[in-house]
């Protein structure tokens, strides 16, 4: 019995030795982890981002890679689950030995892998987690290895409040928010602050939780009130149903939202007829006239046969943004890449030109998009 155990022990230690050798010797490729919501509640955000990322990596590899080294993406599905995202981040760092991790797309899942990044000194970057405090620790210091290329919620909330007050001349607003997510709470808080400071009033604040399907009671309640706009900070699953039920009950006032509206599922759930007089803040618009954006849209359509949404564009920019920093880094270590990411200035992407500020947030512009019959009809660009 003892002999067998010793044998086993030797076998195990030899294999681990070999495994360690093989993963260390492969330095001709640059491994990047992709940790996204490929299934589950936020699947369309994750899938969209990954489509953009894969397109960018293909382009970079076709052009000879980063300083002659090809990128090898390692992709995992975190099932829209924060705990799973953290487990996968650990696996990517310790087992797959990646140099950086892209994703997840949503604030909650992204936040869960921050401790892994800081501990292992591997930079993580997201294209779409907009939570305000994402890059800060609880004591107010900046997480050294955490980056993002999208604006935060307070900026979205503020821009939409100003837009409602000035462009739509709204004085009274109703809020229907997703109280189960930091996203919904953060956006509505910032909208309320800016809107009331400008002189508007909030008539009512209603709340729901992710997964609800029946909103008729809330809608009937606000139908009897006097208001100009509805602010609906939430994700597409519930937002689509709320818009549908509101329009069915005859509420035709403008409905305002944020980047969570940017999904084809919103159109499926609400129906094209309901999506009129709907505005939302977004990272990018498909009706932009910029030649770089037009080229991206054409290339994307050629590759995937559909128009890119904001998550596709953000994923694309994110991969290019991290690749750009790896190219500039002094060595291929997490620390050097982090320094290069911090030094990014005027990086030109399809979602706008961005520089990284001292809080690891980007300085970039925002779009307010109007939907007509479910299609993007017009967009207004707002600079920070």
């Amino acid at each position, binding site marked *: 019995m003892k002999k067998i155990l010793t044998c086993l022990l030797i076998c195990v230690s030899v294999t681990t030795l070999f495994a360690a050798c093989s993963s260390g010797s492969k330095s001709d490729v640059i491994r990047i982890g992709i940790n996204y919501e490929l*299934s*589950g*509640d936020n*699947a*369309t955000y994750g899938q969209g981002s990954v489509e953009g990322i894969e397109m960018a990596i293909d382009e970079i590899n076709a052009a000879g890679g980063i300083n002659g080294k090809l990128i090898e993406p390692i992709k995992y599905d975190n*099932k829209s689950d924060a705990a799973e995202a953290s487990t996968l981040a650990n696996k990517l760092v310790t087992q797959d030995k990646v140099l950086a991790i892209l994703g997840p797309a949503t604030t909650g899942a992204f936040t869960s892998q921050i401790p892994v990044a800081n501990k292992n000194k591997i930079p993580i970057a997201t294209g779409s987690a907009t939570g305000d405090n994402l890059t800060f620790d609880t004591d107010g210091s900046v997480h050294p290895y955490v980056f993002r290329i999208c604006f935060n919620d307070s900026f979205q909330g503020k821009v939409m409040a100003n837009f409602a007050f000035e462009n739509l001349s709204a004085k009274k607003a109703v809020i229907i928010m997703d*109280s189960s997510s930091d996203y919904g709470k953060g956006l509505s808080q910032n909208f309320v602050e800016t809107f009331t400071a400008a002189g508007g009033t909030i008539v009512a604040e*209603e*709340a*729901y*939780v992710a*997964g609800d*399907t*029946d909103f*008729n*009671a*809330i809608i*009937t*309640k606000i*139908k*009897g009130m006097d208001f100009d706009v509805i602010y609906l900070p939430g994700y597409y*699953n519930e937002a*689509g*149903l709320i818009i*549908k039920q509101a329009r*069915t*009950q*005859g509420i035709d006032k403008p409905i305002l939202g944020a980047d969570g509206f940017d999904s084809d*599922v919103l159109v*499926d*759930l609400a*129906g094209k007829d309901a999506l009129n007089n709907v505005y939302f803040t977004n990272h990018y618009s498909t009706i932009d006239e910029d030649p770089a954006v037009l080229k991206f849209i054409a290339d994307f359509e050629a590759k995937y046969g559909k128009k890119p949404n904001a998550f596709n564009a953000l994923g694309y920019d994110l991969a290019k943004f991290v690749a750009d920093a790896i190219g500039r880094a002094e060595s291929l270590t997490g620390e050097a890449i982090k320094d290069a990411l911090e030094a990014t200035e005027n990086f030109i992407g399809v979602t706008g030109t961005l520089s990284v500020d001292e809080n690891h947030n980007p300085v970039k512009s925002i779009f307010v998009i109007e939907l007509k019959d479910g299609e993007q009809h017009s967009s207004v660009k707002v600079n920070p």
Partner: protein
Amino acid sequence: MEQFLQQVINGISLGSIYALIALGYTMVYGIIKLINFAHGDVYMIGAYVGYFCMTSFKLGFFPSLLISMLVCAILGVTIEKIAYKPLRNATRIAVLITAIGVSLFIEYGTMFFVKPDPRSYPPLTGLMTRSFRIGNIVFSAQQILIISITVVLMVLLQFIVKKTRIGKAMRAVSLDRDAAQLMGISVDKTISFTFLIGSALAGAAGILVGIYYNSINPLMGMMPGLKAFVAAVFGGIGIIPGAMIGGYFIGLVEVMVAGYGNSMFRDAVVFAILIIILIVKPSGLLGKETREKV
């Protein structure tokens, strides 16, 4: 007042769904004293069968409704034959735990095949997209459809239970299984039939929810299943009219809490009702006090 009436319509539509599911709970409990926790998942399967009928086979609403009722009926009988029949003489707790196992099996099995992402029902056409107004009160065609189909199914159920031979057998088995068997009633057949009817009703509720809310997912059966269970307990578990009343009551309470109170408390209030009922009148609204025979 208009707002109140509108909320009543919202509540009755929601309550119809709960009532249809609660009927299955209550019938099964009445006949074999089992709380069939897999029942909410039969309702979810009904929604998915309707979805595939309408998208993959391009069938209309009524053929899809019949097919999903049929598929759910078969599923219900299969569950009973495979999972519960072998445990007919086991302890009640063993069967209850089996029911929870079946529930999880269906939920995650379905998730494996159809993926966990929510799906949206195909857009409705013609008359079904209309809404009707009386003053400021809006009825959508789907709400009218839900309420009327529920009423038709309930009348049909009452007819089956009260006027047919198999209905008589169901009542007999629920009253005293051994005596019924001595009178020449096939107990197994009657139990299967009860599962068949209850599951068909859940299937109907599933497809109605699909066209009403437009969004379905593999875990959609959990919450409505639990609320329908509360409805069944409220009306008196095992009593068919009690489940109907309970369903409408829970639907109305939920809507009124969201409409006039705080929308965050509506689920809490529903389960508070369960606790209060169990403390104050455990036999339910229509239940009679029965002494446990020793």
